[in-house]
């Protein structure tokens, strides 16, 4: 195993060396950094050219200059990387250090949302194979697959951001919208849940009533301007979560798990006011982290207290319930920040921004307001990347689950009388997740490269912007810096995916044939 890892790492570094060598030379011969200076009429033109040549070592031919660059990069191993200087005289390492977190934030959010949504919908389409829901989701997946990301981004900016901001000035929801949203959500839920004609229409009616009712209440109470959940709604939703999670993970028949989850839901409401007090007086990531630790510890103890046998699934259920209901409390906190955030001068009731990764004019130092600012800026780019990305997950999850459901062990599980829930969630879903996990890891690295266009549409200053700047300005060191980071991530992610696959699936032996 160790030998395999070492050998693979050796091969990977050779690959990285080769591809960076080629790209360096291609990029170096494709543009002369002094070209624009040569055309300028500046009196000290020759001096500028000479100093640029000296700084960037342009007198060394590119194949040799590559090794000078490589020597700097290998400084990573002694903690002192040197990616060379950019055209503007700043160290490339500093620009990369600023840009990388921005891109990672975007890509991480988009990948997580796309994966969760895509896997959920993919599983439902597989379970409802050849139904109308399956066909329409297949169509939507193909449509999203075929969308150019820059086109979607412009549309989102125009319709979602600007129209929504205009709408917020006077948030009166017209009756046609209320009915329309009700109809759409009715259709969605009815086709997901309804199997017979009767249950289809029952679900349709219920979903229609609930969603149009909610939208109408939002409109009447001005909820969109000053949203909050409040303790009662949090409690009701937590109880719903407790039932839902228990049903999915161990089944409602398991009373111990249900009691443990309901206790956690109840505890989240007991802790509602104290937690808000902590949030208001000690804002910051540290207190969120500490509260999360306390939460999970409590959940483990509650789970253990209620269970006598078969403890692991119950504790797991309790933890999931606890995290989800605590998430509600956090969402509630952000909702209460919404109104002060909208009232700041920088925002002025136009909360959905179309460019940038944070508001430069925002002078608030409040942790919640600045976090909310980051979140609102993430909203549109993440949505654009998610829309495009999750189509692939729908298709993949559907295909994998169908493949798994055709296996013999599923028939065995059904034959020995397990409930449909156990067959799907324990036997089929878990085996579907093995290839999904590896795809997810490999995809994550791919999206880093794919976020270029999104970043450029939304004017984010991330890795993509740096690369474009490097190409346009013939800034070789900058371009190579971006390439080195993305390529290393891609290579390592593929490697991790291979290892993960063999860890999750004992049938795959690592090192065989590789």
């Amino acid at each position: 195993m160790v030998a395999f890892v070492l050998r693979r790492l050796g091969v990977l570094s050779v690959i990285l060396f080769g591809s960076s060598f080629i790209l360096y030379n291609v990029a170096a011969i494709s543009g002369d950094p002094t070209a624009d200076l040569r055309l300028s009429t500046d009196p000290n033109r020759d001096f500028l050219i000479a100093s640029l040549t000296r700084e960037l070592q342009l007198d060394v031919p590119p194949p040799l200059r590559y090794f000078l660059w490589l020597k700097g990069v290998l400084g990573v191993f002694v903690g002192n990387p040197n990616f060379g200087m950019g055209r503007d005289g700043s160290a490339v390492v500093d620009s990369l250090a600023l840009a990388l977190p921005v891109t990672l934030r975007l890509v991480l959010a988009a990948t997580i949302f796309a994966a969760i949504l895509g896997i959920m919908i993919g599983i439902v389409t597989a379970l409802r194979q050849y139904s109308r829901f399956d066909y329409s989701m297949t169509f939507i997946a193909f449509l999203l697959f075929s969308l150019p990301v820059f086109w979607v981004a412009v549309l989102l900016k125009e319709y979602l951001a600007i129209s929504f901001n205009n709408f917020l000035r006077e948030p009166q929801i017209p009756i046609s919208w209320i009915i329309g949203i009700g109809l759409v959500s009715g259709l969605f839920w009815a086709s997901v849940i309804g199997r017979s004609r009767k249950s289809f229409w029952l679900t349709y009616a219920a979903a229609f009533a609930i969603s149009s009712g909610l939208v109408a209440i939002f409109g009447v109470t001005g909820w969109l301007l000053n949203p909050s959940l409040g303790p009662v709604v949090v409690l009701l939703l937590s109880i719903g979560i407790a039932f839902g999670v228990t049903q999915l993970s161990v089944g409602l028949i398991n009373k111990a798990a249900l009691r443990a989850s309901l206790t956690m839901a109840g505890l989240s409401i007991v802790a509602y006011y104290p937690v808000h007090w902590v949030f208001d007086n000690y804002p910051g990531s540290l207190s969120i982290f500490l509260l999360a630790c306390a939460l999970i510890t409590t959940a483990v103890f509650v789970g253990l207290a209620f269970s006598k046998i078969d403890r692991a699934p119950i504790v797991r259920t309790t933890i999931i319930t606890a995290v989800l209901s605590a998430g509600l409390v956090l969402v509630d906190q952000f909702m209460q920040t919404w109104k002060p955030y909208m009232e700041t001068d920088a925002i002025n009731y136009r909360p959905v921004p179309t460019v940038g990764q944070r508001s430069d004019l925002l002078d608030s130092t409040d942790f919640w307001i600045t976090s909310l600012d980051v979140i609102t800026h993430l909203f549109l780019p993440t949505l654009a990347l998610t829309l495009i990305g999750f189509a692939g997950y729908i298709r993949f999850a559907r295909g994998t689950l169908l493949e798994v459901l055709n296996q013999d062990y599923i028939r065995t599980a059904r034959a020995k009388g397990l409930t449909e829930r156990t067959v799907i969630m324990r036997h089929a879903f878990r085996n579907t997740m093995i290839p999904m996990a590896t795809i997810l890891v490999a995809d994550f690295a791919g999206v880093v490269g794919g976020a270029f266009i999104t970043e450029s549409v939304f004017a984010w200053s991330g890795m993509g912007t740096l690369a474009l700047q490097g190409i346009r300005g013939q800034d070789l060191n900058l371009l190579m810096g971006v390439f080195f980071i993305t390529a290393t991530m891609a290579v390592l992610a593929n490697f991790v995916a291979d290892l993960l696959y063999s860890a999750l699936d004992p049938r795959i032996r690592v090192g065989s044939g590789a």
Partner: protein
Amino acid sequence: MARKSKVSVESTEVLSGENAIQNKEIEGLSQGQIVRKRFFRHRAAVISLVTIIVIVVMAFTALDFRLFGIWRVPGWWKWTPEDLPELRFGDCPNDTVGCPTISLLPKFLGGQGIGLGTHPFGQDDIGRDFFALVMKGTQRSISVMVIIGGIGATLGVIVGSISGFYRGRIDAILMRFVDFMITIPVIIIGSVIGYRYGNLGAVFLAFLLGLFAWTGLSRLVRGEFLSLREREFVDAARVAGATNKRIIFKHILPNAIGVIIVSVTLLLSGAILLETALSYIGFGVVPPDVSLGLLISQYQDSFTTRPWLFWYPGLFIISIALSINFIGDGLRDAFDPRQRRRISKKERQDSATARKLAQAND
């Protein structure tokens, strides 16, 4: 007792009937005929095939082009992208100029009747006919797509089949080379190439991009070859004295063709999105040439005032990519031997009633 056994025989017949229908369907047909038959049953794929043919024919015949650089073949559309007709004022909403004249609403519904008008897709800011521009852009984007796809598919199949068939050292070398190509993000290399060579024309750019687009396909083909070469029919061919060349071209490749075709369609739809994206950030097709991505990039600022300049190129990109994806889906269904026919509603009801009858009789 006799009655009961008869019913049970009937019900098993109903259950296996589905298989019987399938077997009957492919009786006496060649592989190609079966695939064609299955493909034409996929409604979305057939619609997409028609769409793509219509788009290609429309785009490539609309404008004048030169055959071998000498003979000028006139197109059926009255404007060319170089013409500068007068900007249309008036009868446009919100005081805009050069709005589209296409009308799909018949007169009795309050529209202006179905017709194209002088400028169906409107005019751009200096008055050029936008239909002609979009047609030209579609030509460019489709040719770039076909070239990238063609080169990618050829290289991918060659590399994949060599390394899958011969295995051993040559396989290891080729696959490390693939690994190495995969580390270079296509968008970065595309940008570098496009920035330097974009002005040499779209065809050259597409050729270079094609040299980087084959890696995924080659891995797939390799996997397919690795499993096919162990099968009995390959052994049989070898025992019968077939050469390697004959085994590859006559025995293995035809069996792998389904997988290849499907992933080539994916490659094609990826290629058109890559070309438009590169043109959008300015590293693909460069003006004065026209491509769909470039049109969107050039006119995205006028979205609020003259949205048609943004909509039509986008709709063409989506139609092309969507059609190709659906054709790929149809082909996958058609080539997949495990693919079972979707059971129609009537058949399902029939078998349900039969089952109920059987239960009632029990």
